[in-house]
């Protein structure tokens, strides 16, 4: 079975641009969560979606948004990029709430 897949793997943007990151969960998983991980730190929770509805939001500005599609795949959008948005963005899928998370390999975003 395929694991969690994320695209693209690497991305370079300039300040002020917007970016869309994509995630395909493991087949059968209905929950998708997004995390931001800065080098040397733990993953910071951004969003959780379950059955296409937002079920949790972390302490991130409104420039960050996400959605989940009928096939349970998900997109994370970040507008008006700042240098501080440079990080590894991880997507994790799970069967439901509080279940073990399966992480994708992440998208490394660099904002110049």
């Amino acid at each position: 079975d395929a694991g969690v897949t994320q695209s693209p793997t690497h991305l370079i943007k300039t300040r002020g641009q917007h970016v869309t990151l994509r995630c395909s969960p493991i087949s059968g998983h209905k929950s998708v969560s997004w995390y931001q991980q800065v080098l040397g730190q733990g993953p910071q929770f951004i969003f959780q979606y379950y059955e296409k509805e937002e079920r949790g939001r972390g302490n991130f500005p409104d420039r960050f948004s996400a959605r989940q599609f009928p096939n349970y795949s998900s997109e994370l959008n970040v507008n008006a990029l700042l240098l501080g948005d440079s990080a590894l963005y991880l997507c994790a899928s799970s069967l439901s709430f509080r279940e073990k998370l399966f992480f994708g390999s992440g998208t490394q975003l660099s904002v110049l």
Partner: protein
Amino acid sequence: QQPVQSPQAVILREGEDAVINCSSSKALYSVHWYRQKHGEAPVFLMILLKGGEQKGHEKISASFNEKKQQSSLYLTASQLSYSGTYFCGTAWYNNNDMRFGAGTRLTVKP
């Protein structure tokens, strides 16, 4: 709202033991433990659901003290493959998502 992990870093020789602690200021529903190797995604190790529960995974085990809102990860007779950063993830009763600690960097040397 993130759990607090300690220590921040540990250096061991092969065969030595280590304990990593995770504490929360809010009532815990469950605690997860993950390991992340350099340049890779975090990988699930185990989940603890009940107060006082202990679980094991090879020579890695964990305990969960619901009353103290703490969990500890025990690594015994460490192997080189145990090197990586260990994260605890906590889920609380009043929300559905998972929050992670800052991580404990474990280095096992020959």
